[in-house]
């Protein structure tokens, strides 16, 4: 802080020599002249003092029979004097600050967070329609109305937040993973006439627990794909046991079917890998208006290479986003090399692929009961063949057909 005040007022570095420099310093302090950075060397003394104090030295110099010479000049008063000779430079700095101030009043970056179901393009288009786009004045934004509009437009969005950070607007979104009321309504309309539950896989019924509808199978029954497991037509009987009418319901049940899944995986023994030569070329670039300008220009000259791009948005003072991206492109040369897996490694690769498939099935709620696979060599490849015995809820709803209902009409 003291440094800033000194800079604004201006200060000089002086050299003092002569009869009694010590008395010179004492008289300075007696007259409330602050000295700093005092250093002595070979009978001469150098020190700093304020610009206004410098003009009060004449009397002291005469009294102490010393001589004073100015070595350096610092501070704003001297800068202003120099600036008078470079008017255009000063005007340029002023214009630069004015331009920054002006540009900081507009939106130069839009950031979207948390959207999975609603795509970025959809949101950008919607924001543009709402008047939120690059180069829009910040003062024209009504964030609360924008939040409400997003929630209204996208039914999946349950919560939104729009906030301004410098020249960037950040839209945060939370989406609802559960089916929306509209989707539920559509589902209900689809099965308005009732629905049967049918098997999606051939197998054996391992368990059945019916909540709605009439079960057509029991535990241990073998079923084919498409077999009706639970009927959505519920008979209403008379006292004599005859069917008076059929009620249409959407069948609902927990049914586990034990079925077999075919597995067939092939791993070629021949493969190609990248042998990096260690040669690398790095280019700097900046992107403006969708075009990328690379320095030095020209091709890298490698036949086969990987390109790694590191891109950063240019930002002033960590706040003001500019519509310019800068970064580096690294081109790493490699030579494609043909190689062969031995059978052991190829088998390990096949096993790992099978494990991955099993993991994916388990994530979907499928239980693996038995794994019966074998690996055989066929020409230049290893083939994994076999079947997995699984327990899964392989059922779906199917609308009750017109034919069926006509036949059942009493």
């Amino acid at each position, binding site marked *: 802080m003291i440094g800033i005040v000194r800079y604004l007022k201006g200060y000089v570095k002086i050299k003092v020599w002569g009869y009694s*420099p*010590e*008395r010179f*310093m*004492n008289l*300075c*302090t*007696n007259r*409330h002249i*602050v*000295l*700093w*950075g*005092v*250093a*002595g*060397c070979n009978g001469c*003394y150098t*020190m700093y003092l304020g610009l206004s104090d410098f003009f009060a030295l004449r009397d002291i110099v005469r009294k102490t029979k010393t001589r004073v010479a100015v070595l350096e000049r610092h501070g704003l008063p001297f800068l202003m004097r120099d600036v008078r000779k470079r008017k255009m430079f000063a005007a340029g700095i002023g214009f630069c600050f004015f331009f920054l101030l002006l540009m900081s009043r507009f939106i130069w970056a839009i950031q979207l967070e948390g959207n999975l179901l609603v795509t970025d393009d959809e949101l950008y288009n919607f924001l543009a329609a709402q008047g939120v786009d690059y180069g829009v004045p910040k003062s024209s934004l009504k964030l609360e109305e924008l939040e409400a509009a997003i929630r209204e437009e996208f039914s999946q969005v349950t919560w939104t937040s729009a906030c301004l950070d410098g020249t960037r607007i950040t839209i945060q979104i939370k989406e609802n993973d559960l089916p929306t009321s509209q989707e539920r309504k559509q589902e209900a309309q689809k099965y308005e006439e009732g629905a049967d539950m049918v098997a999606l896989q051939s197998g054996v019924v391992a368990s059945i627990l019916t909540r709605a509808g009439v079960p057509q199978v029991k535990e241990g029954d073998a079923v084919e794909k498409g077999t009706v497991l639970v009927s959505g037509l519920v008979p209403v009987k008379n006292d004599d046991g005859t069917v008076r009418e059929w009620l249409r319901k959407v069948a609902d049940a927990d049914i586990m079917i034990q079925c077999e899944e075919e597995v067939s995986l092939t791993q070629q023994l021949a493969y190609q890998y990248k042998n990096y030569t260690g040669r690398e070329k790095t280019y700097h670039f900046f992107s403006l208006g969708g075009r990328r300008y690379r320095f030095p220009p020209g091709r890298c000259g490698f036949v086969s290479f990987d390109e790694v791009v590191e891109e950063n948005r240019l930002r002033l003072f960590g706040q003001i986003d500019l519509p310019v991206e800068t970064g580096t492109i690294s081109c790493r040369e490699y030579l494609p090399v043909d190689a062969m897996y031995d059978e052991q490694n190829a088998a390990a690769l096949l096993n790992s692929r099978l494990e991955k498939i099993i993991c994916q099935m388990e994530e979907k709620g499928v239980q693996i009961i038995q794994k019966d696979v074998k690996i055989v060599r066929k020409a230049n490849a290893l083939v994994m063949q076999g079947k997995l015995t699984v327990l899964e809820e392989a059922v779906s709803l199917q609308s009750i057909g017109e034919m069926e209902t006509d036949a059942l009409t009493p």
Partner: protein
Amino acid sequence: MSRKKTPAKAVKKEAEKSTREKLVDSLRFPRDMMMGASIVTVIGNGQVLVENYRGILEYTECSIILQGKSCRIAICGCCLKIAYYTNEDMKIEGKISEIRYL
């Protein structure tokens, strides 16, 4: 007419001093204010802060002699520089080897 102090007068003045000191001590007044004693604060062997002095008597790269109210203070070392020098206090920087009261 000679103004030389007789031994008796010198002893009396010493007695007065001690009385004043006793008074300051008994009333618990700060000695630097009442007696004009210099305050020398030494930080490591690189910085010395001095308050309550009258002026600089001698300044070289190896020694700085200051005039206090009751005594002189010699600060010896090498590469001695005065970081700031005001009417109230001063800060000396350098490699300090010795501080003496003359």
